[in-house]
C-alpha cells in the first residue's frame, strides 16, 4: 500500500485537475482539432502543400524576421527596462505606461500607422529614402512591424528581474576591484538571463503569428514579402481549409520545437548557475 503523502499546501489535486481541464479546453483540444483536420489530406498532398516554393519562401521570411525582431528587442528592450528600473527621471511613469501601448493598439492600427510613417513619402521613410533605405513594402518593413508589436514582452519580463538585484552586490563587486564591465557581465547578467530568454521567446512566438499589422507594411509580394499567416488566410479565402491547417501545423510544430529548445536552454542555464 502506498501511503498518500500530503504536500504542505492543500488542494494540489484539485488545482492541477482544474488547471489541466482548463488547458485542455482552451489550448489542447483546439490544437488537436487542427491536427485532425490535416488527416483529411493524403500524405502526398500534405507534403506538396507545405513544400510549395512560395510557402517555403514565406517560412523563411516569417521565422527570419521574427528572429531578427526578437534579437533586436532583446537588446533594446533590455536598455529600456534598464533605464526604467535604474534611473529616476521626469516623465518616467508616462514612458513606463507607453511600453504597453503596442499591446493595447489594434494591430491593424499599428500596421497602417507604421506604413504611413515608413513609406517613401512618410516622415521617417522620407529621410531613410535619402540614405537609400526602403522600409515599407520590403522585408525590413516586416521586421519593423514585428519589433513594434513584440517590444513589451522583453521590457515587461525584464523589469521585475532587474528590480530584484540589490545594489549591495554591485557595491561589493566594486570594492573588491571588479571593473564595471566585469560587474555587469559576471554579476548582473547571469541572474537576468532567464528573464531575458523568456522575454526573447515570448517576443519571438508573438511575432510568428502576427498578421494584422504586417500585411499593411509588407507589400505581400509572392516569393519576397509574403508572411506565412497571410498564406494561411489566402488558403481560407479559397475555402481550402485542409491546406490552411497543413501550413498551420508546420508553423505549430516548428514553433513548439523552438520554444521547447529555449526552455531547455533556460533549464540548463539555471542548473549551471545553481552549482
Amino acid at each position, binding site marked *: 500500500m*502506498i501511503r*498518500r*503523502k*500530503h*504536500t504542505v499546501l492543500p488542494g*494540489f*489535486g*484539485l*488545482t*492541477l*485537475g*482544474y488547471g*489541466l*481541464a482548463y488547458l*485542455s*479546453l482552451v489550448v489542447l*483540444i483546439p490544437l488537436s482539432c487542427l491536427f485532425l483536420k490535416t488527416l483529411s489530406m493524403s500524405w502526398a498532398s500534405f507534403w506538396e502543400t507545405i513544400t510549395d*516554393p*512560395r510557402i517555403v519562401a514565406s517560412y523563411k521570411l516569417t521565422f527570419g524576421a521574427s528572429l531578427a525582431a526578437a534579437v533586436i528587442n532583446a537588446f533594446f528592450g533590455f536598455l529600456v527596462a534598464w533605464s526604467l528600473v535604474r534611473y529616476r527621471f521626469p516623465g518616467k511613469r508616462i514612458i513606463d505606461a507607453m511600453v504597453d501601448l503596442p499591446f493595447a493598439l489594434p494591430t491593424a492600427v499599428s500596421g*497602417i500607422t507604421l*506604413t*504611413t510613417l515608413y*513609406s*517613401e*513619402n*512618410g516622415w521617417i521613410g522620407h529621410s531613410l529614402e535619402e540614405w537609400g533605405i*526602403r522600409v*515599407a*513594402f520590403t522585408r525590413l518593413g516586416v521586421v519593423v512591424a514585428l519589433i513594434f508589436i513584440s517590444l513589451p514582452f522583453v521590457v515587461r519580463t525584464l523589469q521585475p528581474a532587474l528590480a530584484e538585484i540589490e545594489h549591495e552586490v554591485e557595491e561589493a563587486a566594486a570594492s573588491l576591484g571588479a571593473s564595471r564591465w566585469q560587474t555587469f557581465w559576471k554579476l548582473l547578467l547571469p541572474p537576468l538571463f532567464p528573464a531575458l530568454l523568456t522575454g526573447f521567446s515570448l517576443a519571438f512566438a508573438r511575432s510568428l503569428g502576427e498578421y494584422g499589422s504586417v*500585411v*499593411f507594411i509588407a*507589400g*505581400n*509580394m*509572392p*516569393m*519576397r514579402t509574403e508572411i506565412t499567416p*497571410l498564406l494561411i*488566410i*489566402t*488558403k*481560407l*479565402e*479559397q*475555402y*481550402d481549409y485542409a*491546406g490552411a491547417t497543413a501550413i498551420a501545423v508546420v508553423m505549430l510544430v516548428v514553433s513548439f520545437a523552438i520554444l521547447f529548445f529555449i526552455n531547455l536552454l533556460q533549464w540548463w542555464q539555471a542548473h549551471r548557475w545553481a552549482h
Partner: protein
Amino acid sequence: MNRIAGATRPAWAICILLIAAVSVRAPFCNGEKRSDGRRLADEARSEKSISIINVSYDATRKFYKEFNDAFARHWHHQTGQRVNILQSHGGSGAQARAVIAGLDPDVVTLVMAYDIDLIRERRALLPEGWQKRLPFNSSPYTSTIVFLVRKGNPKGITDWDDLVRPGIIVLTPNPKTSGGARWNYLAAWGYALTASGGDPEAAVDFISRLYRNVPVLDTSARASALNFVKRGLGDVLITWESEAFLVLEEFSGDSYEIVVPSISIIAEPPVALLDAVVDRRGTREVAQAYLEYLYGPTGQEIAARNHFRPRLAGVAERYAQTFRACRMMSIEEVCGSSREAQRIHFDEGAIFDRIYRPETADQSSRQFPREGTG
C-alpha cells in the same frame, strides 16, 4: 515518485470529469439550440416586432445603414410591425465562411455569386438556381471598374493599355484575399481578351504585364486606397466605381480624377435569402420584402446616392450625369460564370498564381522606381 502519483490521481479524475461534462453536454446543446431556434422564431414572428439579419461585405456599410432605416419605415407603414435589421459587414469571403461555419442570417448580400454558391454547396441553406429568383441575376445594384488617377492625369492614363506601360505604378489589391478585387482582375481580363480578339495566351501576357506594375499586393481594397490616397503611392488605382466616388467624397475631391476605360466589367454583387433560415425563424415574408424593396424606387434611389449603379430606368436617368456610360462586359461574356472565374483564375495554381511563379516573374521590374511617384 509514489507521492506524486498518489497526489496526481485526483487531478486526473477532476480533469477527465470536467472535460467529459463539457463534451457530454454538447449533444444536448444542439437540442437546446433547436428549441432556441424555436424561441427565436417566436420572437421573430411576434406581432409587434420582427428582426432579420443581413450579412454583407465591407463596401456596402453606408448604403445598408441608409437603406435599412428606409425599409424599416416602409415595413412599419405597411404592416404596423417594427422590423429590426441586424447588419454585419466584413470581407466577402470571411462573411461567407462565417455562414458556412454556422452563422444563420436571413439574407446575404455579398460581392460575387460564387460566395453564395459555396454557402449553398456546403450548407444547403438555399436551392440551386437561387440566382434566378430575383431580377437581374439577383443583383439589384451594380458597379463597374474604373481608374482613379491624380489631378490633371499627369501620366496620361486613358485606358487599360496605359496601365501596362513600363514605369507606370498600378495599385490594386490581391484578388485572392479581396473579394471585390476579383472584379478588378476580371475587368482587365475582359479587356485583354477583347483587345486580342479572344486569344487567351495574349490575355495571360497582358495580365502578367499589368501585375508586374503592381508593387504592393494589399489584402483589401481599403488598404490599396490608403496607399494611393494617404501615402501618395502609385499613378493609378484600379477600383470599384462606388469606391472611387467614396474616395472623392472622403478625401478632398479635387486631388483625384476618375478615368473610365473603354471596356470594363459590370460588377454584380448578388443578394439572396437563405430559405432554411427564414423558414425556421418565420421571417420569409419580411426578408423577401426586404430584398424586393432593393429593386423599388426608394431602394434604387438610395443605392444611386451611395454610388452604386441603379437598375431602374427612371432612377438611372436621373443619375446619368454621375455614372458615365462605357461598354461593360458581363462576367458571363468574360469567362462564363463566377464559378468558372474562380476555377480558371483564382484557385490554387490557376492563372493568377502562375503570374508569380519564380521562373516567370521578373523580380527587378517590380521594385518601386527610384524617383518621383507622387
